[in-house]
C-alpha cells in the first residue's frame, strides 16, 4: 500500500469519526487490475475501500451535484483537474462551499485504461503499483508488468495546468513541483486551418456516431441544470431523435452551454462510448473565450463565474 492511500484512509477515517462529514466519495479498486471505481464510504470501518493509484481517472465532483440535497457534509477526493469542478459547482450555486470537504491529491498524471489493456493482461486484480520514474510496475494476480508512463498516460495529462488541486481542505500526498504545462491548443489550431468541407466531413462523421446516451452531460461538473433542455418533453424544445442533424444540434448546444464555463477536465472525452472527441469542441470555445475575454481556465479560482454571464464595458464586440 502506498503512502498516499494510507494517509487518505487516515484522513477519511478521522473526518468520519469526528462526524465532520457523513460521506466520503473516493476511488476504490475496480473490476480489473487497472481500473478504479467511485466508492461512497459512510463509516470509519469502511475506509479500507479507499485507494489511490495511477488509475484514478474518474472525476468525482459531479456526484456533489447529484447529492446536493444530502443532509450532511460530504468529503470528496479530487485531483488537480477535477478540483476546478469544485469551483464550477460553488460558482454556479449548485452546492455551498461549506457543505463540502475537499481532499486534494497532487497528481503526476493518470494512465489510460484502453492503452494499458492493449499492452498487458489487465484481467487480474491489483496487488500493488510501483512508480519508478518513467517505469511503472503493475503487480496483479495475473502477473507483474512493467510499462512506460509515456506510452500509457492519458492523452489529457500531456498538458496539465494544475498538478496540485486548486482547492483542498486536506492535502494528501506531496505536492508536485513539475511546472504546469498549459494547453497550447495546437489541435484546435490544426482544425481551424482546415477548409470548411474538411471540417464538415470530420465533424459530421463524429456526430453521426453519437448514440445520445448523454454520458458526456452526466459526468460534466458544468452540466447541472435542474431540468436539461435535452430531457424536456413539455415544451419539446429540441428533437430527441438519433440522427445526424439532431446529434449536431445536441453537440453544438451542449458545447455552447459550457462556453466560458467548461473547466477542461476532459471527462466528456473519456466517458464517450463512441469515442467522439467532444472535448475538442469545448477546447475551441475555451481558446476563443481566453482570446476574447482574457480569462483563466474556468474553475481555477474561487471567484470568477462565467465570462458569458457577465458584462464589462471593455468586452470585445466582434460584429458591431
Amino acid at each position, binding site marked *: 500500500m502506498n503512502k498516499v492511500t494510507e494517509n487518505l484512509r487516515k484522513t477519511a477515517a478521522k473526518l468520519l469519526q469526528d462526524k465532520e462529514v457523513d460521506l466520503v466519495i473516493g476511488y476504490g479498486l475496480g473490476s480489473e487490475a487497472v481500473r478504479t471505481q467511485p466508492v461512497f464510504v459512510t463509516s470509519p470501518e469502511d475506509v479500507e475501500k479507499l485507494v489511490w493509484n495511477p488509475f484514478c481517472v474518474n472525476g468525482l465532483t459531479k456526484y456533489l451535484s447529484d447529492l446536493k440535497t444530502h443532509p450532511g457534509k460530504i468529503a470528496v477526493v479530487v485531483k488537480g483537474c477535477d478540483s476546478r469542478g469544485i469551483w464550477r459547482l460553488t460558482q454556479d450555486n449548485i452546492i455551498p462551499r461549506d457543505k463540502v470537504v475537499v481532499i486534494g491529491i497532487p497528481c503526476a498524471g493518470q494512465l489510460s485504461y484502453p492503452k494499458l489493456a492493449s499492452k498487458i493482461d489487465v484481467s487480474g486484480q491489483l496487488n500493488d503499483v510501483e512508480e519508478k520514474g518513467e517505469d511503472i510496475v503493475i503487480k496483479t494476480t495475473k502477473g507483474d508488468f512493467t510499462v512506460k508512463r509515456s506510452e500509457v498516460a492519458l492523452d489529457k495529462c500531456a498538458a496539465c495546468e494544475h498538478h496540485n488541486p486548486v482547492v483542498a481542505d486536506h492535502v494528501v500526498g506531496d505536492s508536485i513541483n513539475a511546472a504546469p504545462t498549459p494547453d497550447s491548443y495546437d489541435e*484546435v489550431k490544426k*482544425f*481551424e486551418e482546415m477548409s*470548411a*468541407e*474538411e*471540417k*464538415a*466531413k*470530420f*465533424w*459530421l462523421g463524429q456526430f453521426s456516431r453519437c448514440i445520445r446516451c448523454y454520458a458526456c452531460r452526466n459526468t460534466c461538473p458544468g452540466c447541472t441544470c435542474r431540468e436539461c433542455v435535452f430531457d424536456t418533453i413539455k415544451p419539446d424544445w429540441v428533437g430527441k431523435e438519433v440522427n*445526424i*442533424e439532431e446529434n*449536431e444540434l445536441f453537440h*453544438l448546444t451542449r*458545447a*455552447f452551454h459550457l*462556453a466560458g464555463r467548461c473547466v477542461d477536465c476532459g471527462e466528456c472525452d473519456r466517458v464517450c462510448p463512441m469515442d467522439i472527441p467532444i472535448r475538442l*469542441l469545448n477546447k*475551441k*470555445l475555451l481558446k*476563443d473565450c481566453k482570446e476574447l475575454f482574457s480569462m483563466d481556465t474556468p474553475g481555477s479560482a474561487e471567484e470568477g463565474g462565467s465570462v458569458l454571464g457577465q458584462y464589462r464595458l471593455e468586452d470585445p*464586440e*466582434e*460584429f*458591431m
Partner: protein
Amino acid sequence: MKRLLEYVGYEPGRFNARWISGSEAQKWADTTKVITENIQALGPNKRFSK
C-alpha cells in the same frame, strides 16, 4: 457561436449576427441586403444532403 459553427464546417458567412436597434431602419435594410447577397453567392446549404 459564429466561431463554433465555422469550426465544425459551416462556410464563413453562412451564419451572421448583427446588433441593430429598432430605430436603425436604414442599417437593418442595408445589413439584410448584404447578408442576403452573400448567402445567395454561397448557394444552398448542402451540409446534410450527401
